[in-house]
């Protein structure tokens, strides 16, 4: 992410020169210069507020000298700052004396006052509070709840000496999930967490682990993935940049019109600003986004203004996959898929398949019962969506998915089954999600071996494999295709969302041994599990939990007639270019691969010959990958978990053993 250009400004603090970006608060500049300024109501997690007035400094801007609170005074021009002039000291002392009079037993107040030479106040405050954990009205809890957690559970109430922090109506709020951020940030211990509805083994351990993520979300998300700002939609422009955004049924990986549907467009013109939309209360990532007041153009609710939940990356990329780059279309099909109970991934991928069949002449207006549906036909795509929901016309056929359509087009329209197998993007009967996998063998395996069908959520390895070149050998890829699916399965076992694991990262993640695994977060999940159950965990023990379930699921697939090697087959479109047009579009890349990886001289070959040679090579690679992954997982060559593996995992129930033995396991 490129940063906005900001000017650096040099100021002088107690004679020390320090250069900071424009708009840095004087307090932060002082810290950077190593100058101590007392403060109480400021924190790097929330906006400054200027409540306590402890951080007073004297500022000379060349024309006049004045006292300001340094936590919320931005540096915009060269200044001379004094943190300990007589005037500053006098005023700071007065502030501290008032605090000491009111909260004489709070250790923090005593310490701050002591540092200024004060041991007691010269007068008695009418509302003196002798509680050592008294609330000092700094408002940090109010701000972290509102700005960090995006809730308003705690707030100020009353005025003057009656001012205090309360929950509305002084009652427990159903919105409060007990995240503990307010208690964590409170400098005096005035907030105590008492309500542990799930009675976990160690609630504090869980809260601490959760708070670390919350802290990262508040501090780093905007510079990292901006999940709070635009959610997963930020991946649209990223995938386009790496030739990974599916365009026209995964034929291509980028398009010049992507900028019309990139996240900036949704942020600026569609998403309701500043409104968090988490999947559940208290999620600080809140990556789900909402669009309010969108006026529908089609279908049964045409003309109505509605609220649309989304769109996420997959939904936007589904549109480019249909060759459509119209943000209104994205919102409209997002709404109707949700309303009809359809999945935007399956709908867009199957429609992209229909469009390619139309382009190839396998379908025409007669066969689609009147739908003119080439790539990019947004009206026809919407029409098809309504027809699918109504079970009418061509929607009756398309709605049954790609696997069904392949068979149907062969039987009814005499289509070439091999071509349909190549371009029909499904595995195990489920449509592909929205990534181009041609240049990542590991990712092809990630889709093909996934238990539920062609989904990337067991293992997203494209960057590790294709860009970083971190997993060059079959063994490396197999290791990744062991670890990550097992790790991801663990989230499923615990009912947790995966996104806070690696869509936000601790600032020092780069310095860890295995940054790809985000070890600090794995540690947090171990603490989460231990805090719930009382059983200490390690990365290996969590993965072992998943391995048991994962292998059992594979056996379940076997029982249902899947679960062997032939079901891990993927369409060739996900391995490489199917058509001459695709090959020619990335000719340089493929030619050099033929030369370097296959050992052929592409100069004397026709595109047809080159396509065939590349295909033979890549299909061979995929088979070798399956061999390596099955071996790593303790499965037979046919992809069946072995008796030894299942015994080792303790999944050796009699029916399980009988079934795998029958399949040579």
């Amino acid at each position, binding site marked *: *992410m490129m940063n906005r250009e900001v000017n650096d400004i040099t100021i002088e603090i107690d004679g020390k020169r320090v250069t900071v970006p424009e708009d840095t608060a004087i307090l932060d500049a002082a810290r950077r210069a190593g100058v101590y300024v007392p403060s109480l109501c400021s924190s790097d997690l929330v906006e400054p507020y200027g409540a306590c007035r402890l951080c007073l400094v004297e500022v000379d801007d060349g024309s006049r000298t004045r006292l300001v609170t340094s936590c919320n005074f931005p540096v915009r021009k060269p200044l001379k700052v004094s943190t300990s002039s007589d005037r500053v000291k006098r005023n700071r002392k007065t502030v501290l004396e008032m605090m000491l009079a009111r909260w004489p037993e709070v250790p923090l107040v005593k310490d701050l006052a002591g540092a200024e030479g004060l041991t007691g106040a010269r007068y008695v405050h009418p509302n003196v509070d002798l509680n050592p954990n008294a609330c000092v009205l700094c408002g940090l809890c109010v701000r972290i709840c509102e700005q960090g957690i995006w809730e308003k559970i705690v707030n100020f109430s009353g005025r003057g000496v009656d001012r205090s922090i309360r929950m509305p109506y002084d009652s427990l709020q159903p919105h409060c999930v007990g995240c503990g951020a307010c208690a964590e940030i409170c400098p005096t211990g005035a907030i105590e967490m008492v309500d542990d509805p799930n009675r976990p083994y160690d609630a504090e351990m869980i809260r601490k682990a959760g708070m670390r993520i919350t802290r990262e979300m508040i501090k780093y998300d905007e*510079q*990292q*993935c*901006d999940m709070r700002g635009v959610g997963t939609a*930020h991946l649209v*422009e*990223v995938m386009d*940049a*790496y030739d990974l955004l599916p365009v026209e049924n995964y034929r291509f990986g980028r398009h010049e019109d992507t900028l019309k549907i990139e996240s900036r467009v949704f942020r600026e013109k569609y998403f309701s600003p500043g409104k968090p939309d988490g999947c559940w209360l208290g999620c600080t990532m809140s990556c789900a986004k909402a669009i309010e007041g969108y006026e529908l153009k089609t279908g049964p609710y045409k003309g109505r203004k509605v609220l649309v939940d989304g769109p996420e990356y997959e939904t936007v990329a589904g549109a480019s996959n249909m060759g459509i780059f119209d943000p209104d279309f994205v919102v409209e099909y997002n709404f109707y898929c949700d309303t009809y109970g359809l999945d935007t991934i399956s709908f867009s991928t199957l429609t992209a398949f229909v469009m390619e069949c139309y382009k190839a002449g396998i379908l025409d207006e007669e066969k689609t019962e009147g739908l003119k549906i080439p790539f990019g036909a947004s009206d026809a795509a919407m029409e098809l969506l309504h027809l699918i929901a109504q079970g009418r016309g061509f929607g009756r056929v398309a709605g049954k998915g790609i696997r069904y359509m392949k068979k149907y087009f062969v039987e009814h329209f005499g289509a070439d089954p091999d071509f349909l197998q190549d371009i029909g993007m499904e595995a195990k009967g489920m449509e592909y999600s929205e990534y181009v996998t041609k240049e990542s063998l590991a990712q092809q395996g990630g889709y093909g071996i996934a238990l539920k069908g062609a989904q*990337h*959520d*067991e*293992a*997203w*390895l*494209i*960057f*590790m494999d294709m*860009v*970083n*070149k*971190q997993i060059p050998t079959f063994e490396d890829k197999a290791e*990744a295709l062991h*670890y*990550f699916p097992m*790790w*991801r399965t663990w989230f499923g076992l615990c009912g947790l969302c*995966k996104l806070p694991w*690696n869509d936000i*990262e601790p600032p020092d*993640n*780069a*310095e860890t041994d295995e*940054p*790809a*695994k*985000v070890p600090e977060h794995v540690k947090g999940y171990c603490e989460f599990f231990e805090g719930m159950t009382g059983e200490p965990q390690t990365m290996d023990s969590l993965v072992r939990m998943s391995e048991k379930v994962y292998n059992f699921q594979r056996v379940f697939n076997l029982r249902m007639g899947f679960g062997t090697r032939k079901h891990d087959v993927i369409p060739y479109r996900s391995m490489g270019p199917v058509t001459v047009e695709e090959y020619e579009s990335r000719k340089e890349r493929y030619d050099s691969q033929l030369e370097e990886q296959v050992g052929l001289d592409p100069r004397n070959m026709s595109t047809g010959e080159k396509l065939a040679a590349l295909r033979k090579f890549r299909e061979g690679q995929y088979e070798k990958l399956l061999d390596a992954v099955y071996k790593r997982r303790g499965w037979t060559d046919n992809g069946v978990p072995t008796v030894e593996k299942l015994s080792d995992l303790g999944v050796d129930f009699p029916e399980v053993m009988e079934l795998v033995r029958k399949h040579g396991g």
Partner: protein
Amino acid sequence: MIRVNGEPLSWHPGKTVEDVIREKNYRFPLLIVRINGRLVPREDYGKTEIPDGAEVDVIHLMSGG
């Protein structure tokens, strides 16, 4: 000539990490950059010059799922 993630890339005196990120169109925000194994902090991408012949790793941290 330098190598970026194992692939050759042309070099000129003064070429910075930021130049490489722009040239390779690495738009993903979660990157780890190492020059000959040494970590470069994100704040320094614009001012860190890459020596000729360097092995540069630009690790994209979207992994696993």
